[in-house]
């Protein structure tokens, strides 16, 4: 059969199917009418409409597939996506507890908050650009993954956290550490591998830790950090429920990407966070690319959709899933605020999918050949920093002079941190063997070398074991 014959056959089989379904529906409606005394005409009209619409849509989809129109349909869809300037945040109501919808108009924030967000985003951007420069000059080495373009997510979520809240991230963690409060000097020195770094040069770009600021890493294995973040949230709940600390309401945010959403640990964590109602927020920074693997190629579409939607996996596990425009810091800020407050109240976890984009490659060693120039240009046009600047000026939250002052301050801080890192000493050789164990001798041996259990007074009398 050629294309026309096939088409005719398909249409006629479709017509036959519809007629058969109508006949079946007529019979059912008739019986319902008889059994429940419903008005036949109206019921029939409703049933038949439903009957017509679904197969038609299905037919359109399957016929395109069958006739090899898949490519053009995909292009059409991507064209439609490209044409849309900005996606609105869509709300998904979960069985658990609803989160208020993020409105399409950017919400109002105070001038202080707006300035803080702007400063943090510009710091993140300038810091990462400086990292690129330093890498190409040979001051930084190994794997360096830059965050340029995604600042709205980090600033929008983390700037609202307290010092006793926790953040867990992947290898793209410089800006998370900066937003959480680790000083730029310490981060840059750590990247240079110097003794004055936040981890004394032992962690590096992918392993930023700070006990003071509540940054629990920095993990190279994607998906590994999420259960660790859950653990910190578990600790907060345990302190409240078991240790009786009424004020224990610290929240943990785990940041990870679209690639992580196919890792088993992600699903294990979703289940347990909802099961134990942990104060934990899953923040997916969906930048559409996992190194060179497009999200659309790697992830199956959620049922009934054309594209894979990560936020829809939240309700499947019992928590609200929210999609937000990750290039608009104020929208991220509002969604995160609700999720954080929900968690603090003890209502459990939230899954936030922020649609964002990284302007640079996966790492500084990535030639970044697979992403099209058009795609990059489209997302560059949605840069979060000029967006916020425009918003602040238009709404009177800050003047041009204020903004310039913030930008100058950032330039100063970045220059200073490079100078500091450059001039800092490298770690001594002796540092190599330090910090393998917190107690190297092993418990049971006291400081003076004697066995603890042989020391007088160590144990008093015999115990009763019930």
């Amino acid at each position, binding site marked *: 059969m050629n294309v026309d014959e096939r088409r005719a056959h398909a249409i006629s089989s479709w017509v036959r199917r519809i007629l058969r379904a109508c006949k079946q529906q007529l019979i059912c409606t008739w019986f319902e009418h008889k059994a429940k005394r419903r008005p036949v005409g109206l019921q029939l009209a409703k049933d038949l409409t439903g009957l017509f619409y679904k197969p038609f849509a299905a037919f359109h989809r399957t016929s395109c597939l069958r006739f090899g129109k898949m490519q053009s349909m995909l292009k059409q869809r991507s064209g439609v996506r490209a044409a849309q300037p900005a996606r609105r945040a869509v709300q998904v109501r979960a069985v658990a507890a609803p989160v208020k919808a993020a409105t399409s108009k950017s919400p109002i924030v105070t001038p202080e908050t707006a300035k803080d967000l702007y400063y943090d985003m510009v710091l993140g951007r300038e810091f990462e650009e400086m990292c690129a420069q330093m890498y190409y000059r040979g001051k930084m080495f190994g794997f360096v993954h830059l965050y340029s373009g995604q600042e709205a997510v980090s600033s929008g979520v983390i700037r609202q956290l307290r010092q006793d809240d926790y953040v867990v991230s992947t290898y793209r963690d410089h800006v998370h550490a900066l937003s959480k409060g680790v000083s730029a000097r310490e981060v840059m020195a750590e990247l240079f591998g110097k003794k004055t770094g936040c981890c004394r040069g032992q962690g590096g770009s992918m392993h930023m*830790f700070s006990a003071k600021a509540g940054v629990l890493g920095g993990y190279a294995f994607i998906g590994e950090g999420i259960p*660790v973040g859950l653990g910190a949230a578990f600790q*907060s709940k345990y302190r409240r429920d078991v240790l009786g600390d009424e004020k224990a309401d610290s929240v943990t945010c785990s940041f990870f990407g679209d690639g992580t959403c196919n890792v088993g640990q992600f699903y294990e964590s979703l289940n347990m966070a909802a099961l134990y109602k942990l104060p934990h927020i899953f923040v997916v920074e969906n930048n559409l690319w996992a190194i060179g693997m497009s999200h659309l190629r790697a992830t199956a579409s959620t049922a009934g959709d054309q594209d894979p939607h990560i936020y829809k996996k939240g309700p499947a596990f019992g928590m609200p899933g929210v999609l937000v425009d990750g290039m608009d810091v104020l929208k991220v800020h509002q969604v995160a605020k609700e999720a954080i407050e929900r968690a603090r109240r003890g209502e459990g976890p939230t899954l936030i999918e922020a649609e964002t984009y990284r302007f640079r490659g996966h790492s500084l060693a990535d030639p970044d050949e697979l992403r099209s120039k058009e795609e990059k240009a489209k997302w560059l046009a949605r840069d979060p920093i000029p967006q916020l600047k425009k918003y602040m000026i238009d709404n009177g939250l800050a003047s041009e002079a204020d903004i310039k002052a913030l930008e100058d301050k950032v330039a100063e801080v970045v220059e200073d941190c490079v100078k500091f890192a450059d001039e800092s000493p490298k770690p001594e050789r002796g540092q190599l063997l330090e910090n*393998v164990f917190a107690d190297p001798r092993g418990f049971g041996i006291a400081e003076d070398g004697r066995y603890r*259990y042989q020391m007088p007074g160590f144990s008093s009398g015999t*115990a009763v074991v*019930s």
Partner: protein
Amino acid sequence: MLPALARTARHHGLFTKVGVRGFASQVSEMTVRDALNSALDEELARDDKVYVLGEEVGEYQGAYKITRGLLQKYGPDRVKDTPITEAGFTGIAVGSAFAGLRPVCEFMTWNFAMQAIDQIINSAAKTLYMSAGQINCPIVFRGPNGAAAGVAAQHSQCFASWYSSVPGLKVLAPYDSEDARGLMKAAIRDPDPVVFLENEILYGQAFPVTPQVLDKDFVLPIGKAKVMREGKHVTLVSFSKMVGYCLKAAEQLAKEGIDCEVINLRSIKPLDRDTLLASVKKTHKIISVEEGWPQCGVGSEISAVMMELAFDELDAPVLRVTGAEVPMPYAANLEAAALPQIDDIIKAVKSIA
């Protein structure tokens, strides 16, 4: 009120001389299962940051009944049943340890911990180093290790050598009830991640325990081996179930005039090199006995260490008695052939004695 007074008085040692409890210095027996159970019980009572999590630890009373009674005593907040998500719940335990709690994470067997090995090694073991001392991980990973009876290839692996090669982990392997109690308490009180390798066959075996072992603060030092039996002809060094086999082999060999010294390693990492060296200086011959596979096993490490540090003391090569280099077969006779038996140890000793 009177019982309360009596209790307080007893605690302060006022009435012990009078003998309120009537406890003579007799030695009682305790199974390894009860030893672990009582150790966990006492540590949970002592520090309320300690909690236990794992599969079937709560309502099922423990897959091997090690955590029997703990749920009833401490409640579901401190004895948590988890879904079958090793990587997930191990990660939760590790993260909560980073944040200040002291979890005891049970694996139903150490084979299942392979699902969570990423969290054990990359998060728990390495984080203190990566964070340059800022964030430590006071966690205990425990569960039965090595072959049981007829549980076939995927349930019978010995993981001692894998975990003992990782810097940042302490690896303990108790043999008897005294080891179980003392090492478990030491592991829970230790500020570092501890891999605690138990043995399913030993759970039901009873060993004598002194009142000192029953003390609620009885803690054994980590990193110290125990000389179970003194001897002068050959040193047999092993850990866990194989210590029992070595002791039996030593008994039989004693009848033939060969006097074996049996060392129970207790701690695979840090390895107690001093005790091994002292023993080799006495006997000049050493045999390592383990259940695991030969290549890169614990015996390999002992051989290397003995060769490096005691080359001139050795009168014979260091022999290794290990499990066969096969995945564990199911058939009972093949399984027996795949594991070291007492005769294998005797044969090895006679070949160099």
